[in-house]
């Protein structure tokens, strides 16, 4: 089954409840979302609105209480996980890009990116070749042997994006990926995310507070009190 050819990620009526009885709190109250392959959507909302909870549910890090999630043509959650190995699901089908790059400090750039395919069982040489190709696509191949501490913030974030993309996941969850960057670098990162989404037909959800990049999204989900509202974005041009 080719997930890339399918329908991206679809979420219907997703509920996340913390606690029980009188102390129960619904962090998500029936969230609906759909991100098509090759599309980059923004997810914005104030602190405590449920952004991180939604991201953790989408990332199969915490268990939603109810609802449905479909990845491509595969139902992965239907009032319970349909996938037995969530670790493998995260490794193979979900890419993560964090606010801070969180690169592994003792691995060089190539190995940071190649680690995921290696974990998936791909031989080291093939995994490194795959990583190098992606680093080339992100125009950072010249730092392939550098350690993370030797990179600038923008370079580190590009490596983190490469790591998120290396297994060709159908969906990437980006948590404030431009927060530590200046305007120029932030726009560069958004441009890369859009390019990669187009190139690899990946659905990308960008959680952000960054006013600089919000106008670049064609579609935005606002989340407030655990409920999402979809609206059209400005879709401002990303040309350099």
């Amino acid at each position, binding site marked *: 089954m080719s997930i890339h050819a399918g329908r991206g990620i679809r979420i219907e009526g997703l509920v996340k409840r913390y606690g029980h009885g009188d102390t129960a709190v619904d962090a998500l109250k029936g969230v609906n979302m759909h991100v098509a392959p090759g599309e980059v959507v923004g997810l914005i909302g104030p602190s405590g609105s449920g952004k991180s909870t939604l991201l953790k549910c989408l990332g199969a890090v915490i268990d939603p209480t109810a609802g449905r999630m479909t990845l491509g043509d595969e139902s992965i959650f239907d009032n319970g996980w349909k996938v037995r190995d969530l670790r493998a699901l995260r490794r193979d089908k979900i890419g*993560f890009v964090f606010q801070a790059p*969180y690169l592994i400090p*003792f691995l060089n750039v190539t190995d940071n990116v190649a680690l*995921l395919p290696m974990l998936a069982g791909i031989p080291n040489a093939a995994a490194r070749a795959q990583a190098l190709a992606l680093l080339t696509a992100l125009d950072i191949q010249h730092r392939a042997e550098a350690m993370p501490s030797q990179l600038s913030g923008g370079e580190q974030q590009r490596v983190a994006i490469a790591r998120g993309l290396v297994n060709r996941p159908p969906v990437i969850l980006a*948590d404030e990926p431009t927060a530590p960057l200046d305007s120029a670098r932030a726009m560069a990162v958004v441009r890369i995310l859009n390019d990669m989404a187009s190139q690899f037909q990946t659905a990308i959800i960008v959680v952000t507070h960054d006013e600089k990049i919000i106008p670049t999204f064609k579609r935005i989900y606002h989340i407030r009190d655990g409920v999402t509202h979809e609206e059209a974005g400005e879709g401002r041009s990303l040309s350099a």
Partner: protein
Amino acid sequence: MISLASRDILHGWGKFVFTGIGLGLLIGVTLVMAGVYRGMVDDGKALLDNSGADLWVVQRDTLGPYAESSSVHDDTYRGLLGLRGVERAANITYLTMQVRKGTQDVRAMVVGITAGQPGQVPGWPPYLVAGRQITRGHYEAVADIATGFRIGDRLSIRRNQYTVVGLTRRMVSSSGDPMVFIPLKDAQEAQFLKDNDAIWQSRRRTEANPALNRPGVPGLLDAVLASQSTNPYVNAVLVTLEPGYAPDEVADSIRRWQRLTVYTRAQMEDILVGKLIATSARQIGMFLVILAVVSAAIVAFIIYTLTMDKIREIAVLKLIGTRNRTIAGMILQQAVALGLIGFVVGKIAATFSAPFFPKYVLLVPADTIAGFAAVMIICVLASLVSIRLALRVDPAEAIGG
């Protein structure tokens, strides 16, 4: 799959190496402690080997002459020579004391040996590294090289002066004190000899005793004084057996007919190892346990700290799908690597420092292997806390929120 542990170690090699060196010195101390124990056992065996005896005849109901004081009359050996299976019997005395050379003194075991020839009379130093054996009846000495004495040095034992005529090696008491061999008569005198004031006081008391100084018995006082100024006792009689005789058989014969306590080589070894150095062995055992616990605590603390420093990375690794066993393997490998570095450093430190210890340190391969196994087990156990911590890290920590 790349080795995360080795990459992490190479990335922070300085921290690892210095921690390994610190741990290694601790392991080195542990190995040396074990070596001290082995050295004590070896000293005891060397003492027995070098005596050249098959049987030790000592005062009845004592563990002499090494573990307890023992006193037998110096003509006892004559009776022993008449028994079947006894080839040679020789008196011997042992006295641990400070032997002076000029203004310096050395702790030594002074051994009084019967006149004769090495190899013919038990108790003599079996070989020399310099000089010659004692050939005169008085005032010559053969010293172990560990005393620091040289050929021609003049030693003071009690009030007498001795010239060092020969040097030997590895002739030590069970407590590691080097030996100084002198003629038996001199040694008997040294055990007994008092200062002039004490002799004068003793004579005065004897003369004042009407039972020992009877006007009607001429010569009695002189006989009593003469007996008080001589020492007819030795600490043990060393016996060698004729070929073909079993030590236990001859020992039984001596016990029956001479009413003395006799020990065979095996029994004497049991006394030395099981009784004389048993307390020291327990003491060393306690130190070894403490050092093992401290080593384990250090490894556990270091690995725990290294793991705590990587909590965020571990969360990321778990979030991107790294298996628990990969993360656990990384921590375990680091602990084992730390143990390996520590063990190598410790072994090198112990090997090179052993000769500088005042007591004999014997590093045996069996202890090295056991030490290596113990270090590995300690490292594995010490890493369990950190592995448990790492496995409990929530991958959600990487996302925050």
